[in-house]
């Protein structure tokens, strides 16, 4: 029977594909929130016994990735009064095809990594790679500042998934510090988006191009 972890991982892949294929920023934000809630289960499921620290990390992850980030992003989207379209440099079909290729590459790479230990599903490392690649692709190809932040969060989610495997001895201090940093990063980016909108009447980061050699 399929384990819950594998179920979450397949969900992660599917949401990534949706993120690549959709044109609505609102849907993208919801998908990232969805991923975040799924990821919040990983610290609990990864390694046997429940501890207070893994519970705390899980709760904080769910709260931040599932609630705080989407709220922040939706708010900056509203305050920016923009058309809620992603407007990528690469077409959606092209993005989806990239997704398929990236998936193949990450499966190939994941097969070459040593398995971190018993009880860890084989899928985890390829899925983490895939999510990271999708995030990087999004940052490069999406034009709007908001969608770049969404892509950054996807990247972060992929790394988080990887960390859930790699760091089986959950260290509360480190994990909390990382979560706090990511939170502040998104917060600061949200403010920057608001400012960009005020200054330029758009949040098209492609038009931020006056500084160059």
């Amino acid at each position, binding site marked *: 029977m399929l384990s819950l972890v594998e179920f979450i991982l397949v969900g992660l892949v599917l949401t990534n594909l949706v993120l690549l294929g959709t044109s609505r920023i609102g849907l993208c934000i919801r998908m990232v929130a969805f991923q975040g809630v799924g990821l919040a289960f990983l610290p609990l499921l990864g390694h046997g016994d429940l501890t207070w620290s893994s519970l705390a990390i899980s709760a904080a992850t769910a709260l931040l990735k599932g609630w705080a980030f989407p709220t922040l992003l939706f708010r900056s989207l509203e305050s920016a009064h923009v058309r809620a379209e992603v407007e990528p440099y690469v077409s959606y079909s092209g993005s989806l095809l990239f997704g398929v290729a990236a998936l193949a590459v990450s499966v190939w790479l994941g097969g070459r*990594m*040593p398995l*971190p*230990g018993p009880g860890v599903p084989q899928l985890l490392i390829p899925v983490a790679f895939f999510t*990271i690649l999708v995030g*990087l692709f999004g*940052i490069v190809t999406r034009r709007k*500042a908001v969608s*770049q932040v969404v892509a*950054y969060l996807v*990247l*972060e989610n992929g*790394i988080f998934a*990887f*960390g859930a*495997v*790699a*760091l*089986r*001895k959950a*260290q509360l*201090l*480190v*994990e909390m*510090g*990382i979560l*706090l*940093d990511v939170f*502040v*990063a998104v917060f*600061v*980016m949200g403010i*920057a988006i608001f*400012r*960009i909108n005020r*200054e*330029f009447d758009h949040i098209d*980061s492609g038009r*931020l*191009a*006056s*500084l160059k*050699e």
Partner: protein
Amino acid sequence: MLGALTILVPALAGAAAFMLREHRARRALLVGAAVAHLLLTLAAFAAPARPMFDGALLLDEPGRLFLLITSVLFLAAAFYSAGYLEREMRGSRPDMIEGRLFSNSPEARFTGCLLLFLAAMSFVCMARNLGLLWVGVEATTLASAPLIYFHRHHRSLEATWKYLLLCSVGIALALFGTYMLALAGGGEISLNLNALMAAGPTLDPVLLKAAFVFLLVGYGTKMGLAPMHTWLPDVYSESPSVMALMSTCLLNVSFLAILRVRQVLAAAGQAQFGNDLLVFLGLTSMAWAAVFLLRQTDYKRLLAYSSVEHMGILAFGAGIGGAGMHGSLMHVLAHGAAKGAMFLLAGNVLAAYMTKNVSEVRGAVRALPFSGPLWVAGVLALTGMPPFGLFVSELAILRAALAGDRPFLAVIFLVLLAMAFIGITTAALRMAQGENTIPARPEPMSATWPPLALLLAALLLGLYQPAPLAAVLAASARLTGGF
């Protein structure tokens, strides 16, 4: 516990700065916190290193070295910015390049973020746990982003966005590398530096190398190594001089982060792999910077590319190892002092001439009786002329490279240094010479003393090193060089 205070004092002062409404009190707080920080750092120098929080924080020799240069530069920045903030006009005013109106962001935010930035950098200097190290480096990014957007116009906003996005992505990759390092240990050992180094040979070599690559790219982005340096010229040219000065510290602590990771690599017997990568990235950065230095028309960007070049020198020296590592650490101090002085002087020139264009600045020596001559001295210091400290450190790196098994690297190093020298001196000396295009004007004390002090420090480093400093330098080189 003195070490922990160097984090706590600026953090609390930063929080207080957000609350204070009185401008004078806030500026006094900034200078006071800077003085206190330097005193604490010097006191920590004397005290033996004691681990804090389960060994998560420890002020070892390399940490002390980087903390010292950070603290000194911050003190200069604090003195300078006390006057700078006084002189900055209130309300909106026309932008000198495009003529559009803009205003400054609140002074409390600037001061507060500056202090928090210092706290984050002190934290990085002490972090022994690679996870916490990452947290600290990311915190420096976040604390410094509002500083770039001090002048609220669209160019600084663009620079802020680039900085945030590029550095966040770079840092995210570093986090990936950190996790990979944990995976190399089978996921069972903690990310503590001591534990990782003790596990050394048992770490999975392939994963370890992959982890180093990701960490090098990640922290290298923050350090400004080419080709990940693209945020750096934009940030330097659009942010206030104080911020530019502080980001020199930022580059330094990122270098420290890379050195920490290399310690693990060396403990696992993979030092050669890391060294090759460092040498390669170092020479790439130097070459990239040299090309852009040769035809640079904006003097703030000129200094930025000079930073890229010097970061390349640091990476090159670290990659050569041995005496090169010693030279590299020495270079951190000397370059920090010289570059800090140059940024402050560039701020003075900008305030007088109201242009960042090299060709529109003439006769700075006559127009600015104090900053002008200092600018010339600074250029000489920055390009590694004797007797400044940079000459000594670059010479040490060169000798180490010549003595190594690949002397042709030394030749490339020398050629790139010469190119950078030509680029910087032609532009910067032309600004100093000739008939002054603006009338001579008096300069405020707060704008001239800090760069003078920093340049004197850079000079002193070339002539004489105090015994405690020399001891810390030698110990740090031994620790981080892995020899």
